[in-house]
């Protein structure tokens, strides 16, 4: 094949695919922790009954909702204790701490607009 044809074949296929395509490890890491939590809840359902899993879900939801406004760092001590994050050291603690990133954090106003879904300049998102 001619060189220009090879180039066209390997060229990036447009902005949408750039943004949506994730590195395989990135998507794997996102689903891995969610999946292992799901497996743990299934074990609870089989051994202790569905109420144990429901209670775990409820406690996690309650602990996750107490946080500072967007742009500020939130501790999540309760959530970490429930999920064993408090007892383990991982690369999240050493590498790329978001408090030390060179980029500015999300501006408070924009973050709150996104949280409350009230951005006036954007088409309202379909919600059910």
């Amino acid at each position, binding site marked *: 094949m001619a060189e220009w044809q090879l180039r066209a074949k390997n060229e990036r296929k447009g902005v949408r695919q750039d943004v949506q395509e994730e590195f395989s490890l990135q998507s794997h890491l996102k689903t891995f922790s969610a999946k292992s939590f799901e497996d743990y809840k299934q074990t609870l359902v089989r051994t202790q009954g569905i109420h144990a899993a429901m209670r775990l879900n409820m406690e996690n939801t309650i602990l996750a909702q107490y946080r500072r406004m967007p742009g500020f760092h939130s501790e999540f001590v309760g959530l970490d204790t429930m999920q064993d994050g408090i007892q383990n050291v991982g690369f999240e*603690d050493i590498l790329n701490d978001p408090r030390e990133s060179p980029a500015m954090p999300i501006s408070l106003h924009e973050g709150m607009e996104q949280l409350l879904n009230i951005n006036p300049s954007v088409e309202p998102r379909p919600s059910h």
Partner: protein
Amino acid sequence: MEASLEIPKGGFSFDLCKRNAWLESQANYGSSSIIKKAKKTGTTIAGIIFKDGVVLGADTRATSGPIVADKNCEKIHYLAPNIFCCGAGTSADCENVTEMMASNLTLHRLNTGRECRVITAVTMLSQYLFRYQGYISAALVVGGVDSTGPSLYTIHPHGSVDQLPFVTMGSGSLAAMAVFEAGYQEGLERQPGIDLVRAAIQSGIDNDLGSGSNVDITVITPEGVQRFRNLDKAEPKYKSKNPLFYPKGTTKYYDEIISKVAIIEGDAMEQ
């Protein structure tokens, strides 16, 4: 309905993966590769179980492509007072993963109040490496002595684990394994065990390009740990202390002028 805002997390950042993949595809068009080669340890690491404990050995060369990046690096890392670990693969991955696991094991020891078992360290490491699907390129030999006796495990970068009485890893593993297969016996005494590991690492150094320099040995027994850093040194590269020494008469001259200088007392600036 409230939308949820993602909590920013630390850890690995994948922002540059697309750019790297694109750069790599560009390399086919005759331009030289701009991508840096990670510093690997291209290595020989080995371990055996002898009568009372475990002997771990490693060479000390770290390579970055065809260049030797570190002539005397340490490949035997500390995990716990009774557990040590040799690492092959990307240097940064090995060092950071083992340091992180050492911290986790210390927390575990403080929580349980007991000495760590080797299988604990191995399980934590293999689960961690499996979660990253082999992208963290760290091949490890973990050895130690705990309440159940001496044990030795290998962990491959994708997370698989082997338990064996003698193990080798790295690019020089075949050369070292040949020495082990010929010379290993069960119930070796301490000094023959150390000599066997030294011979295996030396064989890796002699027969493999990626291994070289000196030999490090660590001996773990129920009584304690003994670390021999640079047990067998490679040949020193420079012999004389001052290599730029020129004897008198090296520079040839063909004229000589001797003039007397008078020293006058007083301030030279006044004149």
